[in-house]
């Protein structure tokens, strides 16, 4: 399989997250404004800065994200500030989940989580899949993991 990118709509999920973060971040400033300690623009600016950063991050993250099922490993390339490339050998896959959070359901997406016995990269999440895509990917990984024979997964 060639390198796969995520579904474009995943940006919506991330941008929504950035918006929530921006609101949370501007709350203390809003509180300070309410008590007359700060001018009215302070919470707006604070929220705006976080929002712009968050949206930029989301867009860059989407551009960066790619995954690929290679002959004997699942290969992921992601990360904006710290670029991370993870190689998950198919022999090491313990189990695979496909899951849909509330936001993901809202935009009609799903994600797929791959678990290994490792301690650091113990669960690898692939976001931004269509529900069918996620369950297909899950089936595919499961099939490949069984083929690769996870007898000695630890």
């Amino acid at each position: 399989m060639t390198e796969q990118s995520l579904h474009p709509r995943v940006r919506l999920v991330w941008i929504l997250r950035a918006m929530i973060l921006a609101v949370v971040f501007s709350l203390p400033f809003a509180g300070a404004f309410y008590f007359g300690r700060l001018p009215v623009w302070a919470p707006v600016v604070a929220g705006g800065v976080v929002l712009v950063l968050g949206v930029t991050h989301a867009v860059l993250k989407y551009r960066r994200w790619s995954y690929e099922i290679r002959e004997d490993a699942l290969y992921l390339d992601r990360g904006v500030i710290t670029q991370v490339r993870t190689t998950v050998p198919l022999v090491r896959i313990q189990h695979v989940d496909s899951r849909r959070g509330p936001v993901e359901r809202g935009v009609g997406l799903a994600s797929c989580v791959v678990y290994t016995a490792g301690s650091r990269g113990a669960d690898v999440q692939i976001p931004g899949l269509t529900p069918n895509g996620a369950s297909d990917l899950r089936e595919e990984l499961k099939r490949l993991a069984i083929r690769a024979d996870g007898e000695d997964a630890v």
Partner: protein
Amino acid sequence: MKLAPQSVPYRALQKVSGFVVVAFFVVNSNDWGILPAAGAGGAILLVALAYEIAYYQRFEYELTDDTFDISSGVISRREREIPYRRIQNVDVSQGVIQRALGLAAVDLETAGGSSTEGSIRFVKPDEATRLRRELQRRKSAASSDISETTGDIDETETAERDEFGPAEEELFTISPGELALVGALSFDGRLIGLLMFLSSGSVPVLSGFIPDASAIALTATAIVAVGALFLVSWIIGAGVAFSNYYGFRLSQAGDELRYERGLFRRYSGSIPTEKIQTLMITDNPAKRALGYASLSIETAGYAPGQSGEQGSQAAVPIATTDRVYRLAHEVESFGTPTFSRPPKRIRWRYVIQYTIVVSLLVGIAFAVNWFVAADLPWFGPIVLLLAVPPAAHLKWKHRGYWLGDDHLLTRNGFWSRTVTVVPYYRIQTVIDSRTVFQRRWNVATIVADTAGSSSLTGTSAAAVDFEVEEAVELRETLQNRLQSAVASHRSRRGGFEWFEDDVDETTETAEKTERAEPTEQPGAVESESGETAEDDAETTPDVPDDGVIRPNFSVNERDYSEPAELIDTGKNAVDRFPSDADVAHRRDEPEVQAERGDEQSEREPEAAPESDSEQDDSEREDEAASDDSDREDEETPDDSDREDEAASDDSDR
């Protein structure tokens, strides 16, 4: 089998003892008098005893043919079966009081979860030893059952082994001198913090006595106090280390390592060598100067340091460096490592890092000085700049990695230098990460993650700050060597196991395509499908050296970010591009189009039109799911044809 009867009063007292302390304070603060208090205490003790009797009666463990069963629980009951093969370590420990009463605690660790899977509190020491031996025997029998297809030979073998027991070969016994050294060198910095915290409470009290002491006297007392703190924490650290490692003994018996240690609380246990994940050889400047090092053995069962200050159960606390390496070779025979270091230019990166830290310190000192408006020498930390270049050099010098025949070795750290030995076979994932700053220097970090649990604290094998090209090559190499290590392990086990057992567990849709795979030889059904001409070229099965034809792992070109396209035949929906099949993308295939057109006119009104690509995904999923189950019962000729094709395509690969 049951627990030891004397465990009942011991457990009851253990439970109540904490409560008694609380009760003591409560009684002290009220004036109820001693009688009601004693009455209440007695009542609680009775309740605890009753509970423990019930616990004793409920708790039962049993060694069955292939699992260790524990049924326990008074209020919520639990039956637990632990397969012998999954047991990682067996640990036995005895506290001082437990030893006096003749009790021992047995803990079984498996790879899953963070807590101990089987804990037996308490049995008699003889029984504990018997359990450990028996579990080990059955475990090796269980795992050799896997490797050898004939079980009968195995039976006799294990029976023999049972009679004689595997010969125990001593690997390491701590000498009094080494024990003293462990005590002397185990200086725990955290203790200072704790003592500082405790003693800070007494400062206001003390300062009341010395109201008009001179500045010199104050400084003198401060220095003495700090010195005393160091001394006390050092003595405590030494004492703890001494009692922990008193009588340390590591031995090898058959395919397991056994250890024993402890002065007040005795620990003993076994670690199967096949479950060992990584080895870590650590030293610090003091140990290096004296030519000593320590070794710790990590399994997936538990984290070293999981149980507080005890550290890894099977760690050799201290031994001469060459002895440590000999021991390590005994467990994992890696060669003589020659580490390759990161590029020299990376030292500048560390110089910059340290300079930033120093300037931050200066900044903080300046801020404090400005804030308290005192005339302190805030520029003092600048002196540290002198130490920056040697520090950067040392940091660079002690980094490195080495690729052995079967192991990856990494080395990091100056103050606490750790050499991590990871067999390729134990690698779980390979992670290549580059921070923004690392990208500027064109370097990367490669982490070989294992199932050992101490990686959470950041001690997993990492090759830090290597040239990107080298790092990428290292990543690929690790991945390839892992694959070949797994393959060679498999062939050593001698078994070529298909996964017939697993097929039952898989879901129905997957089963359909898989059914064909295991039984049919690849390439047997080539002629049936139309488009195998080019497939043939790439997937002609060649018989490997070991005569075993393995399935081709090539994967399909399917883009999972797009939904599976459904073909509506009126009765049921079929995944047009099944994930398992190598069906080429045939969007414009005329007959499918025509068929779709026909069917669409006959469809019921509530079904959403197929051509609408923006259709709600979840709805489509539901539809697919329900149609899927229909498909099981009534298959139109159309469908079965297509599926056969899919299946045969798949088995071709």
